[in-house]
């Protein structure tokens, strides 16, 4: 099932380049939300954790997998929710501004 490493490396290189290009100018108000959003994405390691937790035959592997799933899930769930909360805060703020201007 091993995909050849060269393809992986190529994929890695392309993703890195894409990551660099995707973000260029970020207004300061978005710094924290973007960080948080990116952090949630890095919880993708959950996929690995799932495979580990579900596929281990050793007890140690399973425990490690269980821990990995737990932590990764916290990261994913918490990350997306926190990011979303930040955005809803923005919206409220804007509405306030709007209200004030009337």
């Amino acid at each position, binding site marked *: *099932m091993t995909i050849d*490493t060269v393809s*992986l490396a190529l994929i890695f290189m392309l*993703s*890195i*380049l*894409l*990551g*660099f290009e*995707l*973000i260029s*100018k970020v*207004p*300061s108000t*978005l*710094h*924290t939300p973007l*960080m*948080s*959003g*990116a*952090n*949630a*994405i*890095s*919880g*993708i*390691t959950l*996929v*690995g*954790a*799932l*495979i*580990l*937790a*579900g*596929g*281990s035959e*050793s007890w*140690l*592997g399973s425990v490690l*997998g*269980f*821990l990995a*799933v*737990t*932590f*990764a*899930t*916290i*990261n*994913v*769930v*918490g990350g997306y929710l*926190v*990011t*979303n*909360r*930040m955005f809803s*805060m923005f919206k409220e703020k804007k509405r306030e501004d709007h209200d004030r201007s009337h």
Partner: protein
Amino acid sequence: MIEAINWFYILAAFLFALGLKQLSSPATARRGNLLSATAMLIAVGVTLFDQQIIDFRWILGGVLLGATIGLLAARLVAMTAMPEMVALLNGFGGVASLLVGWGEYVNIMDLGSFVAVATFLAVLIGGVTFSGSLIAWAKLRDFWIGNFGIGKPILFRGQQVFNSMLLLAILISGVMFALDPVQGYTPFLIVIALALLLGIMAVIPIGGADMPVVISLLNSYSGLAACAAGFVIQNNILIVAGSMVGAAGLILTSIMCKAMNRSLSNVLFSGFGSVVTAGSDRVEGEVKPISASDSYLLLEASSSVVFVPGYGLAVAQAQHAVRELSDLLENNGCEVRFAIHPVAGRMPGHMNVLLAEADVPYDQLVEMDDINPSMDSVDVCVVIGANDVVNPAAKEDEASPIYGMPIIEVERARTVIVMKRSMATGFAGIENPLFYKSNTRMLFGDAKKSLQALVAEFKQ
């Protein structure tokens, strides 16, 4: 089956890329987050169909536990504690990657050398991210609450030597492990321990105020850790998403550094520096140039800006440009004032003529005596082609020919950006120590061009 999963992974990767792009623009950021969440759902969902997964009990337990904790954490945390929360979550992501690497190793033991290296990296980066994030979290709590004592930089003699040793030890253990993974369980555990230690050592010397930058960097690391874990289990989506976030996080980190008028190395190693060469630059200092785009980041993040126009504004005929910049800043929610020195320019009222031409509202014009008392609370003071009228020598240096002339005390602002073409002197022909102050940045070039470049930056 596995092929179908991989097709879904490609879809998820696409959505992640799109989501990340949208996250970086205010208009679409919310949508971007939803896209990336969808991508995550897809990726996780299809993974459950992986043939490798034979036992769902551990998974179910982990997911339920993790989801509950994550949900509660996100719900209960106070809005002001968001950055800490991000640090903590990030740390968890890091440790998960570490555990994945570890678990895979435990399961297979006889790793190929490529996979071994990947495992080493996953564990190392994951470990650093984990312990570093925890320290950052602690520092931030202290910074906000102030009862722990960890908020300030923690420094001790020999710190640099110690850290070098640590790195070396990690490297040696790593090599031992990678050369013979089957026999390398002990060095592997040592790597884990040392990685955790390294994370701690790397973050403690940094002050609490710099933590957002550190978190952003660690965030980039956790992406890379996930990517390394991807190499370990030969999984596309981990590699793509992880490396994309890693790269994007790096860019974001450097953007944040610039908005604080710091370089990354300055943030990471300033603690060390302050032990060794404390105070030395207070005496002489050096000229620190700044680019228009870095100035933009500074201005964009500030809430109070004072422009100090001088003869150079007139020479460059930059009055309209500065007016436009000031409008943009105001729209950005920033308080803008123009401080006019009585002898700025070459004719009484010189600045008034120019600013009136550009229709700067009269109530934005502040006289010297009125601006000086409030200068300490100004985020950025932009000196546009003024020199003598902001020369601190007039206050500080009794030998100076202009000693005794009242000046606009721009050096008391948090940051000073000076726009001029060169280091040349002004009308009085004397050196200006302002240019060498630690909080001064020189934006060299014609004032109009510089201002226009800033305006362009503001409009992307």
